[in-house]
């Protein structure tokens, strides 16, 4: 028993994650629209780095908003963005993570939209962002289709991707929505199911409106947005792309979640077995694959979207292990 596991290596992209697929596309559009400056929000910093890179290559100015807490846990990416010529602005309000960085980016955009483009990095925000980000990211799924056919002469049985806002997931799922392939999104279960301890929006959220879209949202009974927690800064967001909310409701995609601890385990296992260090975000999908692959029938196959590389997370992981007095 057990499935063959394949990795879609988005971590090998320039800048180290799938984010570049979207930033280059949007930056080219912005340039064509005559905009001279890019604004981005970032959690883990992967989107910030990819935006800064697109800005550098196209000769545009770039400002990236990042939560103070995320700047601390993703220092490497802060340094990379600055090297690429971007201005990184620290957001020390509210949760000090992606949600408040997004608020700040919107505030900037409200006053500077005449010459700036807000380059949203996930499949969230007002129309047309969720659609546009999905279309740019769906190159991932199209490549999987083609490459998998070359390898096995058919389609995979399962595809797994982590879901925060959901850009890498919608990118790999979208070209398979009409195919006989089981699609599974993996959310961040954090430290547990109590409010404020996780970011499993699709599992625990309700309908709500944030950042210009109606989707599922982690909120209290009065419509105040809840704090979230995840070991991975890139999944640490109380909302989720509206198309994921739709796919969950229609039942086409299943959404599950794994805890911080399981994600760390996925991170370590993949590093150890394959010599590939995954981003903590992607490690959530790896962790769920480790759980489910042995249970699948012989001959089945499973593709994990390895959305990013994990160099940026090594400090955070070692801190986590030290706190638990575990030594590698």
């Amino acid at each position, binding site marked *: 028993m057990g499935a063959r596991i394949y990795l879609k290596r988005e971590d090998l992209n320039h800048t180290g994650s799938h984010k570049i697929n979207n930033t280059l596309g949007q930056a080219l559009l912005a340039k064509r629209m005559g905009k001279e400056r890019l604004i981005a929000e970032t959690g883990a910093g992967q989107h910030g780095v990819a935006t800064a890179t697109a800005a550098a290559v196209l000769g545009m100015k770039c400002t990236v908003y990042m939560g103070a807490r995320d700047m601390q846990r993703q220092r490497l990416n802060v340094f990379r963005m600055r090297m690429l010529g971007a201005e990184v602005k620290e957001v020390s*309000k*509210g949760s000090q993570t992606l*949600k*408040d960085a997004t*608020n700040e980016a*919107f*505030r900037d955009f*409200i*006053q500077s*939209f*005449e010459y700036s483009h807000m380059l949203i990095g996930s499949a969230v925000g007002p129309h047309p962002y969720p659609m546009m980000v999905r279309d740019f990211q769906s190159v991932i799924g199209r490549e999987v289709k083609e490459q998998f056919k070359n390898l096995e002469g058919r389609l995979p049985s399962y595809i797994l991707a982590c879901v925060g806002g959901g850009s890498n997931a919608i990118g790999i799922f979208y070209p398979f929505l009409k195919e006989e392939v089981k699609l599974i999104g993996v959310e961040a279960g954090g430290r547990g199911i109590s409010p404020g301890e996780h970011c499993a929006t699709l599992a625990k959220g*309700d*309908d*709500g*409106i*944030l*950042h*210009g879209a109606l989707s599922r*949202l982690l*909120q*209290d*009974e*009065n*419509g*105040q*947005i809840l704090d979230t927690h995840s070991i991975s800064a890139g999944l640490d967001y109380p909302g989720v792309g509206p198309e994921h909310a739709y796919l969950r409701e229609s039942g086409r995609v299943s959404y599950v979640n794994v805890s911080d601890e399981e994600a760390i385990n996925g991170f370590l296992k993949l590093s150890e077995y394959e010599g590939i260090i995954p981003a903590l975000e992607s490690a959530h999908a790896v962790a769920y694959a480790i759980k489910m692959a042995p249970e699948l029938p012989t001959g089945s196959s499973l593709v994990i979207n390895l959305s990013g590389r994990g160099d940026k997370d090594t400090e955070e992981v070692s801190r986590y292990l030290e706190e638990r007095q575990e030594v590698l």
Partner: protein
Amino acid sequence: MSSIRKQMLHYQQEQKPALIAFIMGLLPNEDLCLDCIKALEQGGCDILELGVPFTDPLADGEMIERFHHRGTKQGLNLKRGLEFAQRVKNSCNMPLILFTYYNPLYRMGLDKFMQEARAAGIEGLIVPDLPLDEMYVLKGYGMEIIPMLAPSSTDERVQMAAQQQAAFIYCVSVRGVTGMRNLPEQEIKDYLQRVRTDTRTPLALGFGISGPQQVETFRDYANAVVVGSYLARIIEEYEALPWLLPGQMEKAFLELSKAREDQHGSI
């Protein structure tokens, strides 16, 4: 006719701007907030815009955002805001407009919200994160829905706001969020005149009013002036001396009231 419309009409006939105060509900604390509101009315405030603290106040700048976050940290929310509105209504006569972001309304359910808001004596609503295109969802409940425009609004948007036939249009005076630095005076005047050519709806100017001087400057261009961050600044300055705060609020509005009078004897 709602008393918001009546106030606007009254001041149009008087040819001077109505004064609207924005104050965040229940802060610094419930009783002190109520005392401040009463003092504003004494000072000449005509309409009260009561804010409901929200965790993600996208349209607000640093100053007002701080109040939102202080409020949400104390567990304040729409339900508490509505209860407070009832208290306000019981102790003053100003028409009441509720300023709230959309998610809390959506969460409560529009039918339930509108019913409770009306019962609390609220007559108008400002929902800064609901675009003009979607404003229709709030219609049909007998509530005055106040549309917003900004200097960057295109003529098409101006016409959309005009078609709402609202009690007034809230004209934001800055490119950006509340409390930001103003545009040059002439640019604001041009903007108000541009909106004016498209609509007979009264225009309220707000988002960057920093004192009596500006009320005087724009008194002939706007039908109302909204003062928010200016009051927030006074609250932050005096909240350590809470017994002095209501008096300061009254004083601020007495000065604004004076500034709206025509000091040159003609229009």
